[in-house]
């Protein structure tokens, strides 16, 4: 594959932004019709609804003049959903009624989970295509167990101090094992990069908590002197709101910075990516979405969905090095089209 890319002219890469042309009002119509069908079929149709929704979103996602395509098979999604309901329903039921049985079910879920995640990564990538070429996932089952069972345990054992390391390893696994046709993605953010990012935010949280604590003492005291107990409780209430807003904003900022870190260090062959997400962008998006969903009693949900997707997609660009014409399909992908071979082997999807 590399020979293909060596031909590429070493000129400055051209920036191709992703554009997203789905609209809230059109997705609202798709959502309502499919929701009705899903409810009256007791959830069975939801697998078909998911395919329709993904097809709509993929078809409206455009990169360098071409759109994406979703090929998921509803029957495979239905199978996945039934398995998930049996597994997690059984787990919840067991935990509610008997502790030992609940613990056994917890162990079963933990043991099966990496396999499920692995299968559904394969499924969603294999069923996505761009310019007639399918994506794929090659990671082995063994490394799925390492990344989705062993590493999370490490994160817990180290009381969270291992989390940046685990996060880096997880993203490295997901990105380096993904491919577009025969061309692999690669990932070059280091463990150090992740630790630096997490450290900055830990510092921000500690400093912020400290400042809020001092503010609480000072304002609470002043308010108590000026207007008694009522004033003090008013000040406390105000501070609770301020703290809540502060921690939410820190959370969004961390999300934006990590997203940028991850995608700015991801490559497809010789093409790089550029992510320009900002904390204020995310904060504005999530605050307005949540408020609008509450005040419209849920009718805003499809609009919120489209807005969130648009923000995520349109803050990502591809720095195309040469031409996007040279990716060659992976052997076996073309044969597996339409229900034969790999599509059915990977016929399992867990993601909602």
């Amino acid at each position, binding site marked *: 594959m590399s020979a293909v890319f060596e031909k590429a002219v070493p000129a400055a890469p051209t920036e191709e932004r992703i554009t997203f*042309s*789905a*609209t809230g009002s*059109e997705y*609202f*119509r*798709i959502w*309502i*019709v*499919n*929701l*009705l*069908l*899903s*409810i*009256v079929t007791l*959830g069975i149709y*939801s697998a078909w609804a998911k395919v*329709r929704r993904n*097809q*709509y979103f993929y*078809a*409206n996602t455009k990169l360098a*003049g*071409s*759109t994406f*395509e979703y090929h998921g098979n509803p029957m495979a999604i239905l199978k996945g959903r039934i398995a998930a*309901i049996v597994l997690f*329903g059984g787990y919840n*039921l067991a935990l*509610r*009624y*008997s*502790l*030992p*049985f609940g613990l056994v079910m917890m162990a079963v879920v933990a043991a099966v989970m990496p396999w499920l995640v692995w299968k559904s990564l394969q499924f969603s990538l294999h069923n996505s*295509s*761009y*310019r*007639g*070429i399918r994506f794929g996932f090659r990671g082995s089952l063994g490394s799925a167990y390492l990344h989705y069972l062993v590493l999370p345990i490490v994160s817990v054992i180290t009381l969270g101090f291992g989390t940046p390391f685990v996060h880096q390893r997880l993203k490295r696994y997901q990105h380096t094992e993904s491919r577009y*046709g025969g061309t692999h993605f690669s990932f070059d953010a280091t463990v150090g990069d992740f630790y630096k990012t997490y450290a900055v935010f830990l510092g921000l949280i500690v400093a912020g908590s400290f400042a809020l604590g001092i503010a609480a003492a000072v304002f609470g005291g002043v308010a108590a002197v000026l207007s008694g107990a009522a004033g003090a409780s008013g000040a406390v209430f105000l501070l609770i709101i301020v703290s809540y807003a502060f921690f939410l904003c820190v959370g969004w900022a961390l999300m934006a910075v990590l997203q940028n870190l991850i995608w700015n260090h991801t490559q497809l062959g010789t093409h790089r990516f550029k992510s320009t997400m900002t904390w204020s962008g995310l904060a504005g998006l999530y605050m307005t979405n*949540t408020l609008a*969903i*509450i005040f419209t009693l*849920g009718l805003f*949900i499809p609009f*919120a*969905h489209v807005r969130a997707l648009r923000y995520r997609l349109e803050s990502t660009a591809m720095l195309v090095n040469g031409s*996007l*014409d*040279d*990716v*060659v*399909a992976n052997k076996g992908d*073309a044969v597996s*089209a*339409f229900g034969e071979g790999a599509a059915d082997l990977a016929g399992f999807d867990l993601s*909602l």
Partner: protein
Amino acid sequence: MDGGATLGTAVAGRYYDGVTSRAHRVVLRVRDGHACLEGEAERSAPLNEIRVSERSTHAPRKLTFADDTVFEPDDRRVMDALLHETGHRDSTVVGMQQSWRAVLFSLVALVVVLAVGYLFALPAGAKLVARMLPATVERQLGDGVLDVLDRQVFKPTKLPASRRAELAQAFAQLAPPEDGAPPYRLVFRRSRIGPNAFALPSGDIVLTDELVNLLEDDKAVLATLAHELGHLHERHMTRRLIQGSVVAAAITVVVGDAGSLVAGLPAMALDMHYSRDAEQEADDYAAAMLHQNGIPLAHMERLFTTLEGLEKEHGTMPAYLASHPPSAERLARLRERAR
């Protein structure tokens, strides 16, 4: 479909051959019921072997051939014109999605289906399933719960054994209002959560010392026990479990990934309604049981007025009351019944 003729519209676009990501410039025409591509790639395939992507306002409609190769038109409108000429029909669902009238109808139908399901179908269905479930299954499921509670919430009772025997015997002598009264085991405990009584799916009816002392009236204690027996008789635990699971599943389908904060609150609010229904059924059972045994309903009133006093005393509701209708309301309902 127009079989023989060549249709007028020609659609410029790109063809992807599934081997490389290269875009081949081609022009699509429909001739003799075949889609024909000409230009940097040449091919022809019968229309009925080609999949057309679903209609939407902004996305171009792609053609996918049987071998997974793709034609993507440059201009959405020209493609739509050609599809119109071939007589291509959208599926019913796509037609509904594109029509505001059908969407409005679907929205109304959705609200009606959800409301009817929530208010009538789900409670009735849960009742049926709970009745069919053998009691032994329920018992086994609930086996460990009392052990957990004993470790975390309860201490051994301080009521004298004679007093416990007296209450247990008095309750055992009451005739149940309906046939098929469930077997039960009366369990006395001292608790950290104050006056309380409840039934577990295992058939254990737990009564706290605090409640016995608070009521100061043995017949009111019997009314409490009758209420809990009503919960067992009506299989309320199992029914609530079924109802709660279905409500949670429906919320997941409706809300999707809009966030747990937005999804959690309605689930709680929806469950409150079922909780109150269950309490009313248990109250009715208890009232019928007292009536059957010639015990005046005044003793049950006494239970409610005592609880009402508790509600007024504590600004916040004790655990026993949180999931129950206000005692004043239960009292009013009981008086209505007595009349």
